[in-house]
């Protein structure tokens, strides 16, 4: 059923003196979680991890996304990507499909100074909550520090 369709992906990265440095993760509706992190700084190499999370984990992820009401937002007034890099958040949930793109956000000051502080704040906190969840899952599953 299309209502059950679900996908969630987050990317944050930039091109710099150490090449393409980024973190990216995605959840598929079947529970597959992929995480990739590349930093060439000090010759660190690409980390690519794949896990499968349970239906209860997916349900909790969907709850967090639904509670945030991110799909009601729009990125057209958010700061555009720049030389410091960009963030992307793609979420397919039910009949909503958003693919937001914005600059990296240093702090809430950047949120406040944007053309849409209320919407960008939703994005800012959701991204932090998603990263927090994914880092916990990676830390517990692999006993590594993800970044």
């Amino acid at each position, binding site marked *: 059923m299309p209502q059950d369709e679900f996908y969630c992906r987050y990317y944050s990265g930039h091109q710099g003196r150490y090449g393409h440095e980024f973190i990216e993760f995605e959840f598929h509706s079947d529970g597959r979680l992929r995480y990739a992190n590349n930093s060439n700084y000090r010759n660190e190499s690409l980390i690519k991890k794949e896990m499968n999370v349970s239906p209860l984990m997916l349900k909790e992820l969907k709850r967090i996304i639904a509670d945030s009401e991110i799909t009601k937002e729009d990125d057209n007034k958010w700061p555009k990507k720049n030389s410091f890099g960009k963030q992307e958040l793609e979420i397919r949930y039910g009949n909503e*499909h958003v693919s937001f793109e914005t600059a990296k956000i240093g702090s809430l000051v950047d949120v406040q100074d944007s053309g849409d502080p209320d919407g960008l704040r939703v994005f800012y906190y959701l991204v932090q*909550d998603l990263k927090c969840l994914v880092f916990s899952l990676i830390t*517990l599953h692999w006993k590594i520090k993800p970044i």
Partner: protein
Amino acid sequence: MAKYEELDVRATGDLQDLEMADSQPEITIRRKGRGFQSGEQRGDGVHGSEFDKLSSVDSAAGRAQKSIEGWIVLITGVHEEATEEDISDKFADFGPIKDLHLNLDRRTGFVKGYALVEYDNFEEAQEAIKTMNGAKLLGQTLEVDFAFVKSANEDRGRRAGGAGGFTSRSRGGYGGRRSDRRSVSPSRR
């Protein structure tokens, strides 16, 4: 790619986008965001291949997947004012808790609503799930299950009794991300 560029999601000014997938009923998907306009494809992120995976060795564990050191149990429905002690008080009954994550809502500072607990043994984790799923904590009903499961392919192989190992799929992204973005037919796996 060229096909995708014909589909300018903002061109019409409204966000309604009627979708017709082959031999599928009509589905209306509301699309939004600048991300749909950039056509770049990164091969080094989640759309790449050759990801590290933990494969199951323990067939007695059913669909649950062991993590590198132990078994991770997910608890949801956790009250926003619950403490690590509340969780460990309840869940240490089934075995020593090797690790515990009780993450906070970044905006409110209260508990986000879930906890992750690690046990050494499968039996401890299974007993915690059996006993605590549906139990109450601070007036809220908990849901408890394993956090990680075997991949679908692996699980099918297990049930079929064969050696159906995980086969890696390099196809990434949502539903064949760039080339056939118009198609939203479900279960394209």
